[in-house]
Structure formats: structure tokens, C-alpha cells
């Protein structure tokens, strides 16, 4: 245990550690323990942090150590749905499904050690995959613990029309509206071929346009990014397949309309981004509209455009922590919503 913690036992949450300035820490092994811990923190006005393993105390925060709440509950091989406990990290989860010949899609190194629960709480946008979506997409069911101490339930299905998608309350809202405790995620057959294509363009916006054309033509790389290379901008793409598309790289180059670049460098990039050991934590910085990528990238050194969409793209940069996003006009609503959730309990 890291220094500074004192062990305790509490009637509501069981064993916990505390430290000065209202720091607390509890290990949760069961969904219901998350619910209890959330209620406990809410009663005391503590922030909740989702962590794995010991950390130095954080003032006025409850560290929820979710390491014990990990593992693969079940895999539905027919529907290709993995039922995972939300304390599992993405790297662990991928390894668990890989053992069954399945994949969650690419897991960038920067998210590898993040628990699923934390990614949902953050609204994690660090895996913008054209083929596999964001990490928080592809959810067939999400069970959550509420700060009122109870657990929700949900049928497992690809889509529904039974009112608002209430489980989206926990996506991006920190722990204020609850935390995911287990999730049913779409998984896929592991690719039999993975190649990297590299295509050069005259600038950021040309690269973005090339990517947009590829999307329009139905190409869905497992991952891609645009990065500066000298005066050019290079579009790199991870093309995963089942062997039915032997000319994947050539087709990608043709469709995007740029110049093919040497792949060796691309491979090194790929290793750096997708290898958990080598990767830094990359965070999204700013969303640029279509045609505005060059302007957004100007003056930002070392950025890469990761989330290339028809309508825009997002620039990413390395850093230790998520950038402090500005609270928008909806922040007051978030607060009121969290308050209302608690008030009902009262």
C-alpha cells in the first residue's frame, strides 16, 4: 500500500483506507460494492476516481480501486458479444477475447491500462476507429451503479426504442450519474491480415479529403491518422481483413488519391501507438470542421489527426492527463441532473 493510507472498516462499504484531507480508497470486487461506495462518497461530498491499484491519496476524493472487479463474465460466440466486468482494462479485455479468436478492435497503447469503467466515465475518445467505432460504442447492454446505491438493469440488444438511452447518462459524466459496472460489448472475428497503408498529401485538408473519399467509397480502416511529415501530411491506415481483399493497400492509395509512401516508417508509428509499453497517453485536443484542419493544426506542434470523419476531424496530442475541457452551457444541467438523482433518494 502506498504511504499515507490508514485502514478502516465502515458499516456501509466494508474495508477502506483513509488519509488526511478527506482522501479515501476502497477496493470493489462486486457491482453492488460500487453502488455502495458511490452512495458513501456522495453522502460525504467526495469526488470519485476510478483507479487500478494503489495510488497516493487525493484530497476530498474516494479512489475506487476496480482491479478486483475485472474479468470476462461470458462470451456469446454466436452474437459475438463479450460480457465484461467494468474494472477490466482494455488490454486485459482484448487479451481475454483474443483467446476466443475475437477482438474488440484496435486498442491504442494510451488506453491499454484504462479500466472500461473509467473510459465510460470519461467519454473516452481515444479509439476513433472507422471500422470499430469509439470504445464506448458497440454497447449492447450496460449495467450501472447509481450514486443512490442501487444497480440498474438492461436487456442485451443491439438497439432499442424504450425511451431515452438512459445508460448514456454514465458516458462522459464522470461518476456524478453513476458508473458502469458491467458491459456487453460487440466483439469481432480477429483479422487474419493486418497491413498498414501510408499515403502522402500536400496538406492537412487534402489528407482529410482523401480520408473522406475513402469513407464514401465504403472503406473502413481499423484505425487511421494524419500526421505531418516535413512539408507533406501523411495519412496512415491500419487495414484489417479476412484475406478476401488482397490488394487492400493499393486500393486505399487509389481511393484516397495521394502518393504511396514507404511503409517501414508507418510500421514504427503503428508499434508506438498500439503498443501499451511504448505508448504515451494521447488525448484529443480540438475538433476541426471539414476544410478547417490546417487552420486548427497551425501552431500546434506534434499533433496528429485521429478521428477523420466526413464532417470534421479531431487533433490529438500526447500528455499525461486529459486536457481540462471547458464546461459548456450544459454543465448546469449536468449538475442539476446529478442533484435530482440524489434528491429522489432523499
Amino acid at each position, binding site marked *: 500500500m502506498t504511504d499515507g493510507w490508514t485502514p478502516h472498516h465502515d458499516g456501509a462499504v466494508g474495508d477502506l483506507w483513509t488519509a488526511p484531507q478527506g482522501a479515501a480508497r476502497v477496493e470493489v470486487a462486486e457491482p453492488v460494492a460500487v453502488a455502495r461506495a458511490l452512495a458513501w462518497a456522495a453522502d460525504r461530498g467526495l469526488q470519485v476516481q476510478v483507479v487500478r491499484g494503489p495510488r497516493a491519496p487525493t484530497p476530498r476524493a474516494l479512489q475506487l480501486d476496480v482491479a478486483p472487479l475485472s474479468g470476462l463474465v461470458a462470451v456469446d460466440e454466436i452474437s*459475438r458479444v463479450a460480457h465484461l466486468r467494468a474494472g477490466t482494462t482494455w488490454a486485459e479485455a482484448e487479451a481475454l477475447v483474443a483467446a476466443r479468436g475475437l477482438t474488440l478492435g484496435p486498442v491504442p497503447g494510451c488506453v491499454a491500462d484504462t479500466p472500461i469503467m473509467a473510459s465510460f466515465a470519461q467519454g473516452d475518445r481515444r479509439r476513433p476507429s472507422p471500422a470499430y467505432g469509439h470504445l464506448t460504442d458497440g454497447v449492447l447492454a450496460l449495467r450501472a451503479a447509481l450514486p443512490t446505491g442501487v444497480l*440498474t438493469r438492461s436487456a442485451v440488444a443491439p438497439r432499442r426504442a424504450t425511451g431515452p438511452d438512459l445508460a448514456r447518462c454514465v458516458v*462522459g459524466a464522470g461518476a456524478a450519474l453513476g458508473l458502469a459496472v458491467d458491459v456487453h460489448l460487440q466483439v*469481432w472475428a480477429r483479422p487474419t491480415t493486418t497491413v498498414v497503408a501510408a499515403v502522402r498529401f500536400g496538406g492537412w485538408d487534402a489528407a482529410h479529403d482523401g480520408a473522406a473519399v475513402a469513407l464514401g467509397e465504403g472503406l473502413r480502416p481499423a484505425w487511421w491518422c494524419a500526421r505531418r511529415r516535413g512539408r507533406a501530411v501523411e495519412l496512415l491506415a491500419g487495414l484489417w481483413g479476412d484475406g478476401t481483399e488482397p490488394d487492400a493497400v493499393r486500393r486505399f492509395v487509389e481511393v484516397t488519391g495521394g502518393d504511396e509512401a514507404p511503409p517501414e516508417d508507418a510500421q514504427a508509428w503503428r508499434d508506438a501507438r498500439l503498443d501499451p509499453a511504448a505508448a504515451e497517453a494521447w488525448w484529443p485536443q480540438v475538433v476541426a470542421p471539414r476544410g478547417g484542419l490546417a487552420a486548427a493544426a497551425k501552431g500546434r506542434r506534434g499533433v496528429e489527426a485521429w478521428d477523420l470523419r466526413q464532417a470534421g476531424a479531431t487533433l490529438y496530442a500526447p500528455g499525461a492527463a486529459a486536457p481540462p475541457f471547458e464546461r459548456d452551457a450544459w454543465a448546469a444541467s449536468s449538475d442539476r441532473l446529478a442533484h435530482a438523482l440524489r434528491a429522489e433518494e432523499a
Partner: protein
Amino acid sequence: MEDGTLLVEALVARVGPDHVRTDAPDRDAYSRDLWPRSQLERLAGDPPTRPLAVVWPGDPAEVAEVVRLCAARGVPIVPFGAGSGVCGGARPDRGGVVLDVKRLKALRRVDPVAGEIEVEAGMMGELLERRLEHRGLTLGHFPSSIVCSTVGGWLAGRSAGQCSSRYGKIEDMVVDLEVVTGDGAIRRTPRADALGPGPDWNQLFVGSEGTLGVITAATLRVHPQPAERAFGGWLMPDYRAGLAVMRGAMQAGDRPAVLRLYDALDTFMVGANPHAAEGGGALSRLKGLLSAGHDGGPSRLKHAVLRAVLGSPALTNAAVRALPARCLLITVCEGEADEVAAAHARLERLAATAGGQPLGEGPGRTWLAHRHDVSFKQSKIYEAGCFVDTFEVATTWARLPALYEGVRRAVGPHVLVMAHFSHAYPGGCSIYFTFAGTGADAVAMRRTYDAAWRAGLDTAQAHGAVIAHHHGAGLSRRAHMPAAHGEARRWFDALKATFDPAGIFNPGKLFAEEGA
């Protein structure tokens, strides 16, 4: 109704006398949507609950004014698109004001480069799609009700179109929303690709069925008109074989626009099964009655036969079991040539492996050309003194067969039931059940109707399925909503407290009110 008069005067002052109506024909027309139960109630002579007034604000600011006026007096507001909802969602059961959104119908922005449009909520679906088509674009959203529903209604009910496996459901197309909330504020949700914190507001307002606010506009993703289409049709040995093809395509990452599998009876009814002559006499009669063109006028005899066939559902459903198990699978791939060719080729491989007998392009082309015809049959059935309704549920591929068979068994004693599988995803699929029945009179029909619904939803829930895939919950599924959501209901209540503190937005929909 002193307060009502004052409210109406205030509404008139804000939106103009032509846009507030309190006369009987309007209050009657807006006392229901297309929930078939309302039709049965009407036939049974039950007086509907009529709204106090119908209001047509002309822009978001006027919507906000209406909301403030009603909120101040605690008068319910029922947002109303085109009233094509089939769950009673737009029915003013608590009286109050029906707020018709359809004067808000501007196509505010079309941006083909970004692949986005901004459109107001009252735009009729077909008119939107035609305008997009005129510019070489498509939204890709083709519900069978596209001719009679609005963008706002789609969003409010999580609608699905017939090409959903390529373009997604409406919730998958949303970039952001403009909504008027209970405080009378006009607010725009953060874009789906924005990076700020907070819950996923778009997905909380989408599907809210008028209970959290009035959707006044939305930014939606659009696509170029497809360059190519490939049609496929197969007679599969049974429905499980058909499901294997659909699943294989979706799990391979392909996105065919249409994957549609009819069960044995539905296959028989659409007439694509060359072996169907083996089908039972009652079923042949039924098919004859319903598919003899649309001009074959009504007759007492035809009506009596239809009532006899639907009046003994147990026998008729038993006849279905004697039908050959073979099922029609229709596919349409669209997009750019390479993608279409690859996806269609995979479907051919999958269908061959699963024992499908190829039927060529015919069934797919016929379906595309006549896909709205089936909706016209509804009138014939009601005119004969019978009823018909549909309900759609969804689950994972693994649970689909048990769900299908379970629901068929459960509703079979009450009504004739058939189904098709459509709206496929990598993880699962929806089942669209159509059921038809009758009774000695309208009251008896309503009893049978209720029994069929209850049996269907109970069974779906027992199988762990979601009880609605795209029609919404409204009133028809309200009794099953607590079990569907469990403690997640608290999120809904908190959303209500946050965005509708006066409790005026479509009260009693989705969930029964506390104490009700």
C-alpha cells in the same frame, strides 16, 4: 374551464388566432395518433380525451413561449409530429395542449461536403428525402411511415428505416439537436463529435417521446445517393438458415442496406414461395382476401370469411405449422460499385453455404417497388371488422430463435401472427411481428387485442429481449417499462426533474406517473 380560456387567450396573443384552435373537428382529430387501440376504442364508442387546444407555433421562439405559458399554469403539452406513432405517444390523455410542430419545417442547411443537414423537426419525412434526392443526397432513413411522419417524430421515437443496416437508426444519424426544455429555453445539444464533458445529451433526448422537451431542429448525417444497387433473393430452407446469412454479413463488417427475412407465413403471404401451394386452405383464403389487388371492392362475403379465419386463431396458426418451413430472404446492397460487389458476393457465398435457393433479383426489385403497398391492407382488415397491429422487439442473434418461437406461441391463441426479421446488426436483430384478429364486436376485439399485446410483451421480456426496437413505448408498452428499466428509471425521473420541473411534457407517457 376558466383557466383554460385564459390560457387560450394568451396562446392566441403569442402565436396568432389562426394558429390556436379549439373547435371540435381539430380537438377530435388530435385526440389520437395511429395507435390501433385508439381505433378500436373509437369503434367501441369510447369518448376520447380531447385536448383543450391545438397550437401551431411558427418558430422555436414561439415554441418556447407556448412552453412557458403552459408551464406557468401546469397545463400538459403533447408534442405532435404527424401523429403516425403507433403506441399512443401523441395521445393527449391528460388533456392540455397539443403542440403541433409541423410549421417548423425549414431545411436550414445542406452541407454535402460535411455530409450534414440541419432540418426543422416538423418536416415531413418524404418531403425531406425528395428534397435531398433532388440534390443528389439521401438521409438513408426510410421507415414505412416516411409518407406520414416527421423528422421530430422519428427522433422522439428512435425510429428505424428499411435501410437501417447500412445507414443506422435515426439515433445513429444525429449530430446535434435543438430542443426547447421546460424552462422555455431553446438549447442546442453538444455535437456528437464534441469533446466536452457531460452525459451524452443527444442520446437522452432522442427517444424521449415528448417527455423532456420539444425537439425543434436537428443536424443529421446525410450521404450521396448510392451509385449502385445489387438485389438478392433466396429461398432459405428455414428461418434459422436465413438468420445465419444476415448474421454472417453483419459480423463480417459489411453493411447491406436491406436484409429482410420473412418467416414461413409471411413468405407465403408475400407470395415468393414457389412451394407454398402446400399451404392450408384457410391461409390461402386469407391470402386471396388480402392480396386480390387493391381495387377488388369489399363484400359481405369476403368480410365474413376474413372474420371466420381470424376468429379462430388457434386453428389458423396450426395451419401455419403445416406450411413449408422455407423462408424468403431479400437483400439490397448499395453504395459505390466495389463495396456493393463485395458485399453482394459475400451474401451469395453465405446463402449458398446455408442452403439457399437463389431467386435472382426479382424479389428484391419487387419489394423495393411495392414496399409501401402492405400498409394499404390495414384498411381492408378493419373494414371487415377485424384488427391488425405490429410490434417489434430485438435481441442478440443467439436468443433470436427462442424469442421468435416463444412470442409466436404466446400470442397464437389470440391472433394470427406472422413475422419478418429486419434491422440487423453485428450483435443481433429485430423481429417485426404482425398480428391480426377479430371479435364479436369492438369491445371483444379490444379485449383480444389487449390480450395479444400483453402475451407478446410478457414473453419478449421473459426472453430478455428489448420490448421495442423502433416504435417507441408511448402508452402501449408503458406497463412493461418498469420491468424493462429497473432502477434505471431513476435516471428518467431525474431527467424529468431537470428538464421538465413543472411536469408538463407528455405526462404519463413512457412511464406511468407516480401514484397513477
